[in-house]
């Protein structure tokens, strides 16, 4: 019980204890306690959701940075591939390896496929059913 000080100007001898029912502090019911728990839980849920959102936003920013970095890398690799495929580079590389352009074209002419029933005869005669001929002009 909290002590109360006497009002100023009143002689202490005139103070007395009043008999009667002592006043009990108000009791918190189960329902109110429930609401309180819910309120606290909601408060923490709100905070957590904000933290979660912020963390997600941070991750998104990170991922976006990563995507951007990978896109840049992809672009540079794409450029590198295109540079490697350029005729200038291939020509220079071919020259370095001693390659030259052919003076004349050689044609390879393949005969029409032999009908299935003649394949056996050709095979027995030791001939291939598809013989390519190489010629030059």
């Amino acid at each position, binding site marked *: 019980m909290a002590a109360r000080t006497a009002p100023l100007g009143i002689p202490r001898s005139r103070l007395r204890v009043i008999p009667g029912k002592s006043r009990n502090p108000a009791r918190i019911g189960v329902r109110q306690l429930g609401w309180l728990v819910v309120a606290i839980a909601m408060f923490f849920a709100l905070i957590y959701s904000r933290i979660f*959102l*912020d963390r997600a*936003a941070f991750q998104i920013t990170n991922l976006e940075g990563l995507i*951007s970095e990978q*896109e*840049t*890398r992809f*672009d*540079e690799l*794409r*450029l590198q591939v*295109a*540079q490697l*495929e*350029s*005729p*200038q580079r291939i*020509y220079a590389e071919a020259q370095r390896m001693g390659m030259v*352009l*052919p*003076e*004349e*074209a050689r*044609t390879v002419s393949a005969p029409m496929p032999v009908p299935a029933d003649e394949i056996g005869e050709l095979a027995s005669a030791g001939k291939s059913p598809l013989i390519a001929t190489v010629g*030059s*002009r």
Partner: protein
Amino acid sequence: MGRKRWRPQHLRLFFVGAFFIAAWGVIAVKLVFVQGVQAQTLEDQALDQRLRTITLEADRGTIYDRDGRELALTIEATTVYANPHEITEPGLTAAALSGLLGRPVGEIQAELEGDTSFVYVARKLLRHEADPIRELDLDGIHFVAEPKRVYPSGNLAAQVLGFVGTDNGGLEGIEHFYEDVLAGRPGQLIFERSGRGRVIPQGEYEVREAVRGQDLALTIDGELQFFAQQEAMTAREETGAKAVHIVVLDVTTFEVLAMASAPTFDPNHIGRDSDLFRNRVVTDTFEPGSTQKLITVAAAIEEGIVTPERIFEVPDNIQVFDREYFDFSEHETQDMAVADIVAQSSNVGTILIWQELGDELLYRYLQGFGLGTYSGIDFPGEVPGVLQPEEKWCDSCGASTSIGYRVAVTPLQMTSVFATVGNDGVWMQPRVVDAIIEPGGESASLNQQTHQVLSAETAGIMRQLLTGVVESGTGQLAQVPGYSVGGKTGTTEKFEPDLLCPGATVPGCYGDDVVASFIGIGPSDSPRLAIGVFVDSPSVDKKRTGGVTAAPVFSRVMRFALHQLGVPPDAR
């Protein structure tokens, strides 16, 4: 009834009360005004202050060659900029940047000492160029991503592709002509930010995606283009010419497979010589000379005036009104068949044919072959050339025109004439873009104009005559091992508009410079290609004729092209 008297304290109370009522009234009115009448406007203004819009640049479409090789593409690059107000020691910062950027310290320092809060330090660096600067972690130096147009094959087809400016807008060539197609549509990122410039979470956030530009598939064959460029450069070095141009057309489609000029430039590092940027194959004209005899003879055969076997008595010179015309070399008067006139490129013989053909028919065929008009190729800066209306021709104009003077053509126009003969007499609109590729991969082909100039029969006869030029005439150096090819040589003196002829008072005279050309088709029986080689002002004395200078280049390019296309040899 007694009159109520106001005591002074009541009066004070009244005034104080009235003042507060008035004050609250004013506040109430203002409140209604702000919350009611102006509510929407003020809300919009507040939102505007918080909203920030960033333009999202659209990726520019890629340009491919006919085999899908990337000739021009856009990559993300890094731009370095500075806020001079944040830099405490500009000298040290400039010194640190100078070595990495290859720029003088003084120049950078002057920029960093400027009274501004933004200055570009270097634009559109690749990652390996920007990373060392980033690692320096200099105060006041910032980085931002920017799209950069790159041409991975360097100078390959540079004059065809053109280039873009710093804002990525096309300035020359295909980049310029197809700007609307390639550029795409920029997008927007709209978001709310706080007074300190931070993004407000859960505030307004809207992304309007940029629409990427469409891709272009060119008709250019990258390898053939490279070979043609190499040949053009070699020919220029060997002949001391001012320039060499080579055009390769597919005769069945009039697709431009190669369009090469030497000298050229690298669109990744454009210099200041804007003359190099021009694609002279479509922008410059010359008098075609003997190559145009093809039209005169074809017109006469088509009209039934002559046959290849018809014999003419040909002296080595002829007087037509006020002008005298000579053959290239002196000779006795001799009997020449039309086929011989073409093979030996006789000026006099051709003029004799023109005398039977007449101006009107010659003019009609010149027009039919596309001279004096735009070819309609999808390329900027094309010129139509010069073909005076027939009614304005002088007495000897027809004679000059029949042998390729008084007419100005572009290399593309003249190569198209030979392609028409190769295409059974059908002229087609040349084109350099095969298709526009939508982002989804669907492609849209472009329309093409065509018209018949010669009958297929006459075209066939002309191919035989052109084959004769290569087999036994002036174009023997154009022969291609394994293949039958036909063509025509041309050597034309260049008209100098500022040169004064001896005894003349008006400037304008033929000078010493010539254009040596050879245009041909191959294989002769079933043509696939038409190739034109034009050597502008060769300075080496022995290499001043089309048959000596241009024909060998034609031979090499034709051989490579036929091999490249897998055309089987046909020579008998």
